[in-house]
C-alpha cells in the first residue's frame, strides 16, 4: 500500500543521500538477485578516517530499520567479530546517537549516522565496552590495539 511513515522517510533519506553524498561512502537499500528491494536494510560502506590507523579500509556496515523509524533509530552492524571496543561480537555498534534513551533524534539523517560511526572508529568510547578483547587492548595494550586495527584495515582494503 502507500509506503507509510517509516518507508516514506527512508525513501526521502535515499533521495537526500543521492543529492549530498559524502566522499568515499556508500549507502543503498539492499536488493536481492531477483531485483526485490528491502528499504529496511541498507548496505553501506564507511571509509576509514584519513590520518588515522583506520585509513585505507572501506568497512561494510548494515543499517537495519523498523516500522518505528524514525521514532526509533536504526541498528548498525559491522561484520561479525569486527574489532572495535564499542562493537559487539555480533557486529552491532554501540553508540549514543543510535540509542533512543541517549542522543538519538528522529531528525538525524542517514548521513549523520554514518559520519557518526566513522568518527567512532578512530575515537572509541571508553565507557561503553561492547567486546572484551578490543576494549582490553585499547586500555592496556595500545601497541597491540594499533597493530590489530591496521591488520583489519588491510583486510577491508578499499579496492
Amino acid at each position, binding site marked *: 500500500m502507500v509506503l507509510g*511513515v517509516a518507508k516514506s522517510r527512508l525513501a526521502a533519506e535515499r533521495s537526500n543521500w543521492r543529492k549530498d553524498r559524502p566522499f568515499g561512502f556508500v549507502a543503498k537499500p539492499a536488493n536481492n538477485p531477483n531485483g526485490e528491494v528491502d528499504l529496511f536494510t541498507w548496505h553501506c560502506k564507511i571509509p576509514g578516517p584519513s590520518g588515522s590507523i583506520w585509513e585505507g579500509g572501506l568497512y561494510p556496515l548494515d543499517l537495519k530499520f523498523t516500522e518505528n523509524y524514525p521514532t526509533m533509530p536504526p541498528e548498525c552492524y559491522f561484520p561479525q567479530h569486527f*574489532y572495535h571496543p564499542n562493537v559487539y561480537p555480533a557486529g552491532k555498534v554501540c553508540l549514543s546517537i543510535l540509542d533512543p534513551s541517549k542522543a538519538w533524534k528522529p531528525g538525524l539523517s542517514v548521513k549523520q549516522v554514518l559520519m557518526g560511526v566513522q568518527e567512532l572508529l578512530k575515537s572509541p568510547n571508553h565507557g561503553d565496552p561492547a567486546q572484551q578483547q578490543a576494549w582490553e587492548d585499547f586500555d592496556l595494550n595500545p601497541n597491540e590495539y594499533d597493530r590489530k586495527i591496521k591488520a583489519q584495515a588491510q583486510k577491508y582494503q578499499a579496492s
Partner: protein
Amino acid sequence: MNGEAASPGWPQVVRAKLLQQRMKEAKILAVGAGGIGCELLKTLALSGFENVQVVDMDTIETSNLNRQFLFRKRHVGQSKAKVAAEAVQRFRPSCKINAMQANIKEPQYNVGWFKGFDLVLNGLDNLDARRHVNRLCLAAEVPLVESGTAAYLGQVTVHIKGTYECFECQPKATPKTYPVCTIRNTPDKPIHCIVWAKDLLFQRLFGRADVVSDLDEAAEKAEGETEGDAAAAAEQEASFFVRQTGESSFAYADRVFHRVFCFDIERVISMKDLWKTRKPPVPLRLDELRHAAAGAASTNGIHKSSSSQQATADLSACRLLGIRDSHAAWSTAQSAQVFLMATQLFLDLRSDEVGAAVFDKDDALAVEFVAAASNLRSTCYSISPLSLFDIKGMAGNIVHAIATTNAIVSGLIVAEAIKLLAGMPENCRATHLRSSVHTGRSGRERIIGPSMLEPPNPNCPVCGTAQLSLEIDTHKTTFKELLDRVVRRKLAVAQPTIQYDGFMYEEGPDLDEDEVADYAKFLGRPLHTLPAGGIKDSSVVEVSDQAQKLELSIIVTHQEEWDEEKDPEAFSLGGKLPVASADAPAEDSSVAGLSSLTGANDDDEGIEEVFEEPAFEARPNLTSKRKRSDEEQSPIEKRLKAANNLGEDCEVID
C-alpha cells in the same frame, strides 16, 4: 442545519426515519472481534445496523472470557469473529453479520474490497494493523472510526480523507525499547532485568540460539588475533549453553545458574570503568542460597514427582514448590529454586520445544522462568524484586483491560458512525475517556471529553501525498513505456524514482554505472512481471522526482480493452495533480528536466488543464450525497465553527 424540520441537527437526527433506514442498509466493516469488537457488534446490532462484516484472525482464549461477553467457556479455541457473529444474531436475527477469520492485512482485502463499505470501524489491538487499515481507507476513500482502550482510558477518533487527520498525520508513541548496553551490563530498573531474562536468557536456553547475539560477551579467553580464533571463541561461548551429552537437567540448571549469576557478574565487575559512577553488582552463590532455602523440598525429590505429570501445558514450577501467592515477591532463595526447577522442567518435560521455544505470556512455566531469572539478576544489581504477577504483566506488555471502558468506547464509535451516515461529518469529534472526573467549560463534571478533529497534516507522509488513478494494461505495457508515456510525458517527471513495496527504480546522473545497469534490466519487462509481485490491478505505485519536488502515488487498475479511436494512448490517468514545484532543482540535472517538461507541454492534453480540474471530489461520497445548498457556499471551517456549540452535547449518546 438551520433547524428546519426536514433536517434536524445532531443528536435529534437519530430519530429521523430516513437515517434509520440508512443505518439498516449501510455496509459496515468492523475490524476486530475482541474486547472492543464484542461490545461494538452488540451496540451496532441493537442500534439498528443490519449489514456488518467482521474480520478477526484470533481464536478465543480463556483469558478473554471475563470481558468479551459474547464468548463462553465452550467456545475456547474457536474463531472470535464467527462466535461473536453467531451470538449477536441469536439476540438480533435481523442483523446480518458476515464473519471471517482472517488477518485484515491479507492481500484479498484490497482497495476494491474496502470500497464496498460505507464505513470502517476499528477495534484493533496493534499499531501495525491500525496503520494498514488507515492506508486502505485513505486509498478507498472510506471514512474510518478508530478506537482504543487501555485500562480506564479510551479514545475514539474519526478519519476522513481530505477533511480530517488520518491515523498517521501525527507520530504515534512506539513501544519502549531499551539499549543493549544497559540490558547487558548496567541494568538499574526491574524492566531491564525482565528484558534480559526474556529476550536474552530464555531465548538462549530454550529458543532459537541463532537469534540471540548480544548475550555473548567477547570471547575473553581467546587471544583473538585472527578472525578465525574469534569466531571459534564465540562459538565456544554459544556452546556453553548447549546441554552436554549425559548431563542431567539438574547439573545443567546448576551450571547455567553459576554462569549467569556468578561468573558473568564477576566478569562485568572487572570492567572497572563501568562502576566509577555506579554501584557494582554482587554475584550470587548457589550453595549459600541452597543453604538458606533449607526446609524447602529438595530439588531431586520434586524432579521425580514432576515426571509423572501428564499435561505439559500447565506445568508449573511454583505449584511443585508450593509457592502459591503470585502477588508477593519471592525471596532470593525462592527465586533460585524456581529458576532451577523451571529450567529442569523445561528440559525434562518439554524437551521437544528446546531450541525453538518462543516466550508467551500465557505460558506459566516460561513466565516463572523469566520472573525467577529477572529477580535473581535484580538481586545482583540491588534492584527490588517484583511479584510473579507484576513480571508477567511487564514481560507480556499486558495492559489490564476493563469491560466497561470497552463498552463506553463502543458506544462512542457507533455515535460517530451514525453522524457519518447522517452526512454530518462536521459533527464528528475526537473523544477521550479519562480515568478521573474532569470539570468541563460548562462547569459540569464529566469523564468523557470531546474535542474538535484536526484538518489533515499537509506534510503527512501517508495522506499528504497526491493520489492519481491509472488504468492501463499491466500485461502488455512495459516498464519503459510506463516511464516514457505516463511518468515523463504526462507527469513531467525529470528523474523518476518509482517505488512500491519491495521494488525501487532510480534515475539520475549521480548513480554509479553498475546501478544504472541494474536498473536498466527492468525497462523491457511488462509491468506485472516486475520484482516483488509486479505492478498489477490495485497496486499502489509511488512516484517521485529526484530533480524536482514532486511526490505522488498512483493506484493502478488493470484494463485490457482499449478503443484505439477514443484512447490512442491505451491508458487513462485520473485524479488531481499537485503543482510540481521546481524549488529544489538539482544543479546537474536541469538539462534532462527541461527536455521532458517541454515534451509535456507539447502534448495537446497539457498538464495545466489537469492541474486545474480535479477529476474526483476529494471529499467522501457520504458527504456529497447529503450536500445541501448552504454547504456548497460555506467552507467546512465555517461550518465546523457553527457546529462548535453542539460539541459539548456530543457525549449524550443515550
